[in-house]
């Protein structure tokens, strides 16, 4: 009968594909993004951030960058930037989601924690010319984003997405460029949920004594830490770039420790007190003081 009646066949095929669909795709609407997923601190995007997000979509950044820190230790360590793994509640305002499927570049879910600089100097330099801060990068240059932002639809977007906004938010868009918008978006990512960094960074430990005296013993660890955390501003060889040169720094070990631990917010130097433990920071200090000049 089935092999002879196409109408019955089509209906049956539809029913068969709807079983798995109902259970794994439709039913979950009941739970996902529900009360259990909500995180009070997570805020919707401001008009400027949403414009930035739309530019991120327009340029297809999601083709190279994912936006989910998986629940794996290595993911949290590499892309958490002091935060934890990604939770469902962090994405409730994302239409569409931008999780991506490839990491041709690094994950950006928490990138806002990595470069807290309010001026976004690193991002600007990097977007205009990625190779100027990361020499081997294969990311294209986005200098063309230095163009006035089109704000025709900004308010309508807020309404459509049902995000709260004020007149001040809209006024804030005046004179902004596309570059400003995308940087505002990047700086927001991952910053809603408070991380331990914020509290930890204020207070450096009292006894500022470097436990390491021999570079050899720590060099391997220190080099990895340096490449991971510092090189993109201070240069692969500590020759300086966006941040000052660190080769042969004149600062004392205690001062270096404090700078790394607490950061210098006004200059855009992040505080690593929350992401790196004291031992690791001392390793970096040792590398800076005793490493090749």
């Amino acid at each position: 009968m089935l092999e002879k009646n196409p109408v019955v066949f089509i209906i049956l095929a539809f029913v068969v594909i709807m079983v798995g669909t109902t259970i794994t795709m439709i039913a979950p609407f009941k739970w996902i993004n529900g009360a259990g997923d909500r995180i009070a601190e997570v805020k919707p995007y401001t008009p400027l951030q949403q414009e930035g997000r739309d530019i991120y979509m327009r340029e297809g950044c999601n083709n190279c960058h994912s936006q989910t820190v998986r629940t794996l230790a290595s993911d949290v360590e590499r892309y958490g930037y002091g935060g934890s793994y990604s939770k469902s509640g962090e994405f409730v305002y994302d239409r569409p989601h931008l999780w991506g499927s490839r990491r041709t570049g690094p994950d950006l879910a928490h990138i806002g924690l990595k470069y807290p600089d309010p001026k976004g100097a690193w991002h600007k330099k990097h977007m205009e010319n990625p190779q100027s801060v990361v020499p081997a990068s294969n990311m294209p240059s986005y200098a063309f984003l230095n163009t006035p932002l089109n704000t025709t639809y900004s308010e309508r977007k807020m309404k459509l997405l049902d995000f709260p906004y004020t007149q001040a938010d809209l006024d804030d868009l005046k004179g902004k460029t596309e570059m400003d918008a995308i940087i505002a978006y990047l700086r927001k990512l991952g910053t809603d949920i408070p991380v331990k960094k914020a509290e930890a960074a204020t207070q450096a430990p009292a006894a500022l004594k470097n436990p390491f005296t021999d570079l050899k013993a720590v060099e391997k660890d220190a080099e990895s830490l340096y490449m991971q955390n510092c090189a993109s501003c201070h240069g692969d060889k500590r020759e300086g770039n966006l941040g000052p040169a660190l080769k042969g720094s004149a600062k004392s070990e205690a001062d270096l420790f404090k700078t790394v631990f607490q950061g210098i917010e006004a200059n855009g130097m992040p505080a690593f007190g929350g992401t790196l433990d004291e031992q690791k920071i001392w390793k970096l200090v040792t590398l800076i003081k005793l490493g090749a000049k």
Partner: protein
Amino acid sequence: MNVKTQYYDDSVKGFITWSIIWGTVAVLVGILISLQLSWPQLNVAPYLTYGRLRPIHTNAGIFGWGIGSFIGLFFYITQRLTKTPLWSPGLARVTLWLFNIGIASAAVTLAMGINRTKEYAELEWPLAVVVAIIWVLFSVNVFMTILKRKEEQMYISLWYIMAALVGVTVLYVVNNLGVPLHLFKSYPIFAGTNDANVQWWYGHNAVAMVLTAPPLALFYYFLPKVTGNPIYSHRMGIIAFWSLIFMYLWTGAHHLLWTPIPDWIQTLAMAFSIMLIAPSWGAVMNGYLTMNGQWEQMKSNYLVKFLICGITFYGLQTLQGPMQAIRTFSAFIHYTDWVPGHVHMGTLGWVSMVIFAAMYYAVTKIFETEIYSVKLANIHFWLILIGQLIYSITMWIAGVQQGSMLLATNPDGTLHYSFMETMIAIFPYYKIRAISGFIYLGGLVAFIFNIYKTFQKGAASQAAKA
């Protein structure tokens, strides 16, 4: 002779021609983006940057080359299997026009950055509507032909075709639900984790309903035609069919392992992915067993080579896929180049090999002629085989290498390699991959020349007869 002349094949020829053109675009853009990954200077801002080109590549590949050839070849197969002329040649002509307008507009709008970002559903809503219309017009035409058929039994190929008609419609419509902001921008109605879940329910079943069911329909039709052997087991085909379309829909979350998607959905996806090996290999074995006693045709018949290599890659693909769906393995290779290695064994090995065989065969039948050059077809075969193998193998190596570097830690628990160090290690593979693209392109050129010459020859002999 008279029986044949009643079939309507102009649109078959049209779709074959145009899908080859879009397929060539896909390969050329594929080569360009693979070069851009080694030499970022090749990005031409803003229209030809990697982020905008990659969706052009995937859409030209899946929609232009894949769906375009399926529409054409399904018009061909359905008429023969039902012994009935196409229900509406006029509708088929309109479908071809819309198809070309749709794909061309897709390329232009994607280059302009008009992009919903959801993989394989990037097109903004006006174009998504056009795609849906194309699909419905095509589906109605095929379905009406089946309804009016003169052959009572419906052969397995027709089952796969009908499943694809329903499946693609449901998937495409749901994943495109959105609210328009203006003509060139819309926001999906789903948010965050929900949107991700819907997307990969769609994404994986695009693999099922576009890259699996349709080539299987071709395979089941053309293998017996080409070899002269009937398919080994009709019953095995039926069981494999129903279990395949039942199981596929549970597996989307294997793209989202370790993410905030609820664990039970991930676990179901993992389990069903592994179960999928059975129906997938049902088809593979059916193919192999059909060759019983006829294996020498692998040497003597160039079409058999394409079909059997194609089904072999399908078999490998459906072993590798379930492996990738296991949490621990996914942790290692997800997000790395391993996945493009998998994807291109599927698209270049399985899907394209079967399409090539089907096109060679259909074109010679339509024109009642012989292929222009079997030798050239063999060159075509070897070049695309070598190109694809180099592509996939280098990407698997790159994926494993980068995956292990990303996990390496120092004694104190810190990560050993920075992200850039892992990238620098795999750059050489990107260059090899680009070379493999050129080899593949060489094969494609041989194919196009051969088909073009066969068209010419066929047209001339038909003119002589008339």
